[in-house]
């Protein structure tokens, strides 16, 4: 190692030999007493190699980075917006409920609407039943008349019928 060290100070060592010297001194803490001071020399070189600056990018390059960042952000925000629109669109049919308009009022409760509709249908049915009753009476009368002509008791039945009607009135 001494010969190599002498060669080093004469400026005759190759890069490989210098790397060998450096490795010996930097990685070996227990060098001989005569080498201790030289160890500090190679450690100093090694420390200096670790030094790094705090340097920012040139302005033009910063702008390039800003433009790049702008497009990255723009695409990100567009993606988020598209996702939101899609989510709302998917949810829309679930949120939209069936409803009915009754007397100009919107009814969202389907059970209530059904009950209301059934009641109204019953009313209509009852109304039809009542409205058709005179017709059914007429039909019955016609039928009786036809039967009376056959049996000769029409007059009696009519009389009885008229009597009943007069009593009711």
């Amino acid at each position: 190692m001494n010969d190599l060290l002498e060669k080093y100070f004469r400026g005759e060592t190759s890069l490989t030999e210098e790397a060998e010297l450096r490795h010996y001194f930097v990685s070996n803490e227990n060098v001989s007493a005569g080498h201790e001071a030289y160890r500090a020399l190679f450690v100093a070189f090694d420390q200096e190699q670790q030094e790094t600056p705090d340097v920012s990018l040139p302005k033009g390059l910063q702008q390039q980075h800003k433009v790049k960042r702008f497009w990255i952000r723009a695409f990100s925000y567009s993606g988020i917006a598209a996702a939101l629109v899609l989510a709302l669109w998917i949810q829309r049919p679930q949120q939209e409920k069936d409803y009915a308009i009754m007397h100009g009022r919107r009814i969202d409760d389907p059970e209530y609407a059904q009950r209301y509709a059934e009641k109204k249908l019953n009313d209509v049915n009852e109304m039809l039943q009542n409205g058709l009753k005179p017709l059914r009476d007429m039909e019955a009368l016609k039928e009786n008349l036809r039967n009376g002509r056959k049996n000769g008791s029409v007059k009696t039945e009519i009389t009885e019928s008229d009597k009943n009607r007069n009593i009711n009135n």
Partner: protein
Amino acid sequence: MDPKQFNTQILSLSDRLFRLAKSILRNTEAAQDAVQDLNMKLWEKRSALEEVENVPAFMLRSMRNLCLDNIRQKREEDELPVELEFTEPNPHQQVEQKDLVIRIRGMIDDLPELQRTIIRMRDVEGMELSEIAYVTSLTENAVSVNLSRARQKIRQKIIYEQKRVEEIVWKG
């Protein structure tokens, strides 16, 4: 040269450029400013960089020239003596410095600019003599001579320092 290439090829050399500038200017802030200054100048002329054969060596040479220009300019403005310019409080010069590593770094800083630049390009950056010759605009032989002188001076200072410490211990 596009921004990506510039980032890869030029900015990745910032560490080496900084260390070279710091060695020449002997001031951390001034060295950082110099690196930034050079990066901006090269960014503006990035198209010309494509014609450069050895970009790292070209960058280091540009860095050295820029630092030397800064020193000259500062000297003219302040009329400072040659070896006092930009000298920040040197650990080496402080009393009762016990860390030999720090003192050795101070010893290197005390070398003439050319010698400290050469010894650091060789021993810190691990550059070939031909590359150092290109950066310093010297012949390889002249680089070798300056490297040897620089190392010999450091060695003498280390031996002197050791003797001084031994004397202090002996007397103490």
